[in-house]
């Protein structure tokens, strides 16, 4: 009942772990798979090891979290070990970030070798200079990166989009036109927290990204907007904490969803809970599969 597919990729359960949350190590990815996630998206991996920004990198705010981890990761080479542990246990989506089409292609090829079920291009991180949303708000650049990666690998290529733009649907169309297999929306919102007493931005990077419950209605709208213009599948992410949140994304047009922040407070069992509640909802309201629900709010 919970099976879904994102293009040709089948998932037994519609919920994935979002990139950056409990997915930097093989063992924690396995834990998430065992907790009822249909797939795990890895932490975004780059060509070289990266320590990320210095602490403070994270803080709670009303309505969510603001983080500027700065894409810490051991680099694609060392990440092999983690993939070796995780891949045999379930579907792993390799999230990657780079500064050019070439970077992305190299990383994607390696992720494919490691056994990733798909790659997710991080075109949306709002707090890493020269990466992420700095690339992801230029439709032409986005198109050229997606094209390059598409011709480099056989596994599906997803593009993760930023909501911090008024041309979101143009970016989505650019991904589709370049042959991208799916879009993932949304990454975090550009944000900042200032400590009045110290008269300074709190994060070492000054800027960060807002995630969590407060961004859910922004993400649902992004998916709905994308659903109005795209034919390729959409994956919804942003503020999901229960089945209702997930159902909103699906009805807005998402074939699957990802969860990040809510894992902090609700723990990995959140996937099981949502799976059970979703089945109950589907039974009560006569949906026989997730795909039956996709985009119904457009009608």
């Amino acid at each position, binding site marked *: 009942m919970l099976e879904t597919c994102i293009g040709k990729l089948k998932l037994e359960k519609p919920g994935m772990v979002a990139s*950056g*949350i*409990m*997915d*930097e*190590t093989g*063992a*924690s990815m*396995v*834990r998430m798979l065992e907790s009822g996630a249909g797939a795990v998206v890895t*932490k975004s991996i780059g060509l070289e*090891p*990266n*320590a*990320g920004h*210095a*602490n*403070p*990198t*994270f*803080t*709670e705010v009303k309505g969510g*979290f603001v*983080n500027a*981890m700065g894409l*810490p*990761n*051991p*680099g694609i080479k*060392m990440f092999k*070990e983690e993939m070796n542990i995780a891949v045999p246990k379930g579907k792993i989506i390799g999230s990657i970030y780079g500064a050019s089409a070439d970077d992305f292609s190299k990383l994607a090829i390696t992720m494919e070798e490691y056994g990733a079920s798909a790659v997710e291009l991080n075109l949306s991180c709002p707090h890493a200079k020269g990466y992420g949303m700095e690339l992801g708000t230029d439709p032409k650049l986005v198109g050229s990166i997606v094209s390059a990666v598409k011709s480099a690998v056989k596994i599906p290529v997803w593009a993760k989009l930023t909501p911090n733009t008024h041309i979101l649907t143009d970016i989505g169309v650019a991904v589709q036109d370049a042959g991208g297999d799916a879009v993932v929306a949304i990454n975090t919102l550009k944000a900042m927290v200032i*400590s009045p*007493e*110290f008269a*300074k931005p*709190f994060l*070492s990077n000054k800027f960060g990204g807002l995630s969590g419950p407060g961004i859910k209605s922004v993400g649902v709208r992004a998916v709905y907007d994308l659903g109005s213009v795209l034919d390729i599948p959409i994956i919804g992410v942003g503020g999901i904490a229960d089945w209702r949140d997930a159902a909103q994304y699906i009805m807005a047009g998402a074939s699957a969803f990802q969860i*990040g*922040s809510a*894992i*902090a*407070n609700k*723990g990995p069992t959140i996937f099981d809970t949502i799976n059970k509640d979703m089945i109950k909802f589907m039974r009560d309201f006569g949906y026989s599969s997730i795909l039956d629900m996709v985009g119904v709010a457009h009608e």
Partner: protein
Amino acid sequence: MSDFVKIIGVNEEAYDTKTFEFQWDEKAIPGQFIMVWVPGMEEIPMSLSKTGRIKSITVKAIGASTRKLHELTIGDSLRIRGPYGKGFDLTKGKKILIIGGGVGTASVMPAIKESGADAIIGARTNKDVIMDDLGHKYAKNLWISTDDGSMGFHGNAVQLMREKVAENNYEIIIACGPEIMLYYIYQACVELNLDCQLSLERHMKCGAGICGCCVIDDQRVCKDGPVFTKEQISKMKDFGVQKRDECGRILKFR
């Protein structure tokens, strides 16, 4: 949640260790920690060494950030967030022996206070012993071990523990300290068939269980821990063997 607190008391525990007191109304239980920041340092995790309405952290100066904290004095401010993590479970009704190694003593002091159990403070030399005054006040019996014998028992805390376990019928060991000490405590507990709860450390960023950078195997030290049960520890392949750096790369302990 995050808060801004003023330092209302500073206590020199040893040549390299200071306690900073502040008033903070959040509820906290022994073994929980906070993330501490002032401008000019990295934000770092610190156990609460007092958990009442007046709370404190006890900081050993070992690097840039802890040295920056040592510059602070009464009236200065901290930005803190938390409390985070699972603390010690003192409700099991078992006969407890509590062990603090080095600055780990700060982390177990609230548990000593709350339980009134027997306790051991282990340190390298008599100069490194901290909080023995409080330990004497709160513990039923307090014993001290120093590696060089300059105070109390001559030897390490694990040796002293074995001796005390032989004398008394403790059922559970509660401990915080260097991982190598905890590793031998764990081995001793397995051997002697004792239960244990150990407070572990890993590099922390979010502190809130989200970024995943503090994992030991698949367990987040900041959220699933920092206090872990014997059963949890028995499943950990990394414990005593390896940790990860800021990039997530593996670093072997030995």
